[in-house]
């Protein structure tokens, strides 16, 4: 064999290998998504919870199965919890979608926030839950029984768990007088002092601000923006970028920036306020009179959940008043079950009022809960910007 033939042979082998791999890759990708479109019918729902399978695999926000209350569940149900902490909504979605979707046959439940939940429902990663098997569900604050972020076409894909507002946090020694309006985050006087979450859903915060400061734009819901409203919001965010010191990826990063004095006001969560105040950092949180955006988390059942009984037992357990109160105070959030109020006050007096669990129903009108933006605006029109557009615009703002 001469040199030229040899070289040809080497290249032929290489090309064949590459081609074979390409076909395999294409084939693998092609086969994955077929079984997702079949919809669950009511008759497929379990009518009772069977005995636990001994294991429960959770994708969760850190501390969402804190041993403080999860130990008792493990003892009572015999379901040993394996937890995977997620740092962001995007990470939760990718975890649930890995391995062909539906939780990959590995995960049972995911504690999805409203900016992830519709993506999971639409992507066929979660399945319908029979809420009749979760006794506390009947006691939930009405807006959390079938909220738009976990219920589609009257089908529940999860049970609401806890919620919290996105608060305006400021350093009391550096920002005087303390801000009372969201406008502070768009005020050039605070240039280089501001931190904002690095999350496309943050566009809704700017839209929420415009909803009140520029009523002529006609924004009714900060998650349903037509092109004109969206463009105005993005223009505002591009202005805001000049003032922003840090777009935090994890709330602990935002927390560190406050603690190290790098920022003195920003949007963050109540849990971070508590952590900073614990460390004697002089910060104070406000929820402006106009209200705030907020997140509400749901435990959602993976389509391919390998331990559905343990999953139902867990959903049943964590929505009971006492556990709701325990979790709320560990994480710094608000239960969806109002019966948790007295238990909260038992653990920490005054905490029920502090976390707004005793508010009248119209209080919830001021909180706009995260939901994944979609093209259908609910008014029969399809002219809203969807999450793809939000993600793209967010990259343009922050990148």
């Amino acid at each position, binding site marked *: *064999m001469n040199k030229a033939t*040899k070289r040809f042979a080497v290249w032929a082998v*290489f090309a064949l*290998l*590459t081609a074979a*791999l*390409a076909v*395999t*890759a*294409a084939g*693998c*990708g*092609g086969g*994955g*998504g077929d079984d*997702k479109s079949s919809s669950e019918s009511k008759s497929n729902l379990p009518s009772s919870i069977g005995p636990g399978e001994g294991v429960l695999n959770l994708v969760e926000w850190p501390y969402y199965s804190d041993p403080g209350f999860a130990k008792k569940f493990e003892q009572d149900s015999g379901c040993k919890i394996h937890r995977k902490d997620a740092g*962001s*909504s*995007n*990470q939760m*979605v*990718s975890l649930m*979608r890995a391995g062909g979707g539906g939780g990959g046959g590995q995960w049972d439940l995911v504690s999805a926030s409203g900016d992830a939940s519709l*993506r999971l429902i*639409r*992507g*066929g990663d979660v399945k319908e839950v029979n809420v009749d098997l979760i006794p506390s569900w009947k006691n939930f604050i009405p807006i959390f029984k079938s909220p738009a972020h976990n219920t589609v076409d009257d089908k529940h894909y999860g049970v609401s768990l806890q919620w919290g507002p996105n608060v305006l946090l400021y350093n009391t020694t550096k920002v005087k007088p303390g801000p009372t309006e969201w406008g502070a985050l768009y005020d050039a006087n605070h240039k*280089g002092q501001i931190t904002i979450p690095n999350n496309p859903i943050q566009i809704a915060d700017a839209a929420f601000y415009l909803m009140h400061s520029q009523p002529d734009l006609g924004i009714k819901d900060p998650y349903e923006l037509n092109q004109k409203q969206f463009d105005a919001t993005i223009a505002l965010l591009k202005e805001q*970028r000049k003032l*922003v*010191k*840090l*777009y935090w*990826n994890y709330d602990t*990063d935002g927390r*560190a*920036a406050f603690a*190290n*004095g*790098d920022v003195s006001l920003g949007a963050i969560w109540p849990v971070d306020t508590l952590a900073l105040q614990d460390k004697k950092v002089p910060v104070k949180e406000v929820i402006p009179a106009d209200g705030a955006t907020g997140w509400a988390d749901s435990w959602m059942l993976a389509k391919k959940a390998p331990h559905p009984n343990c999953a139902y037992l867990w959903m049943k357990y964590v929505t009971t008043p006492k556990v709701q109160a325990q979790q709320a105070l560990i994480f710094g959030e608000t239960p969806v079950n109002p019966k948790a109020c007295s238990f909260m006050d038992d653990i920490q007096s005054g905490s029920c009022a502090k976390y707004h669990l005793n508010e009248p129903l119209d209080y919830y009108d001021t909180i706009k809960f995260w939901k994944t933006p*979609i*093209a259908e605006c609910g008014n029969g029109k399809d002219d809203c910007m*969807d*999450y*793809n557009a939000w*993600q*793209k615009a967010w*990259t*343009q703002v*922050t*990148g």
Partner: protein
Amino acid sequence: MTELAEAGALRGARLRLSTALWQRPWLKLSLLLALPAAGFAVVYLGALVSLFISAFWEVDAFTAEVIHTWSLDNFRTLWEDHTYWRITGRTIGIAAAVTITDALLAFPLAYFMARFASRRTRAALFVLVLLPLWSSYLVRIYAWRTILAKNGALNWALNAIGLPDANIAYTNWAMWIVFSYVWLPFMILPVYSALERIPDNYLEASQDLGAKGSRTLRSIILPLALPGIVAGSIFTFSLTLGDFITPALVGGAGSSFIGNVVEEQVGQPNIPFAAAFATVPVVVMAIYLAIARRLGAFEAL
């Protein structure tokens, strides 16, 4: 009798096989390398190929499922939206700045280690150069974040000598410093090995011919060290180019790297767009490696 014949036949076959292999060394070599090469192809090329293929797919806006239709839309978006040009430019620019910084920092130290240090000092310096690699990359980045913070060690030191605060936390300057720090050992080692290989008599010959120190450096040492510098630069450049953790932790507003956008898109999830953008550093590295090969970098590895 038959046993003997069989044994003979077997022996004959073995002999023929070994003769065949001996006559055709390429066959022997390919049989030997087939298995590891196949493994390599599946793991490395397979990943790259499947990445490249999915870059031509799209994601359904409603379900976020991957649609397997071929289109160039992802690449068109990358081309037309100047956001991605800006991010690519920033990524390459900082990678280049880090590479140059590391080369400038590494050369004197490597030169000292290779040519002046006693055996013992050299060993000590090696340990010091490699010591940071014993601790986690994340720990070192977090350490820098506390150093550079407003209430951090840097400003404290500056204030102590009467200088004002340096506001470099959460900026591109912070990224440049942290990257230059974390990848420095990867530059020092190849430069050291290149410098160590320069024979002493070259330098003596240069001196004998009347060249001053600067001329010797320019005409003898630098050309001979260049392959080492280029080899080191492959590490510093490619490691910076592909990073997303440092920008996420010490970068501020407008510090996104290609890796950050890829990570966001994977999480969205929009794998095809992430794949399309991820081909950009692959192309950049291919060009970089082609240039590095020209400069003889692979002889120093």
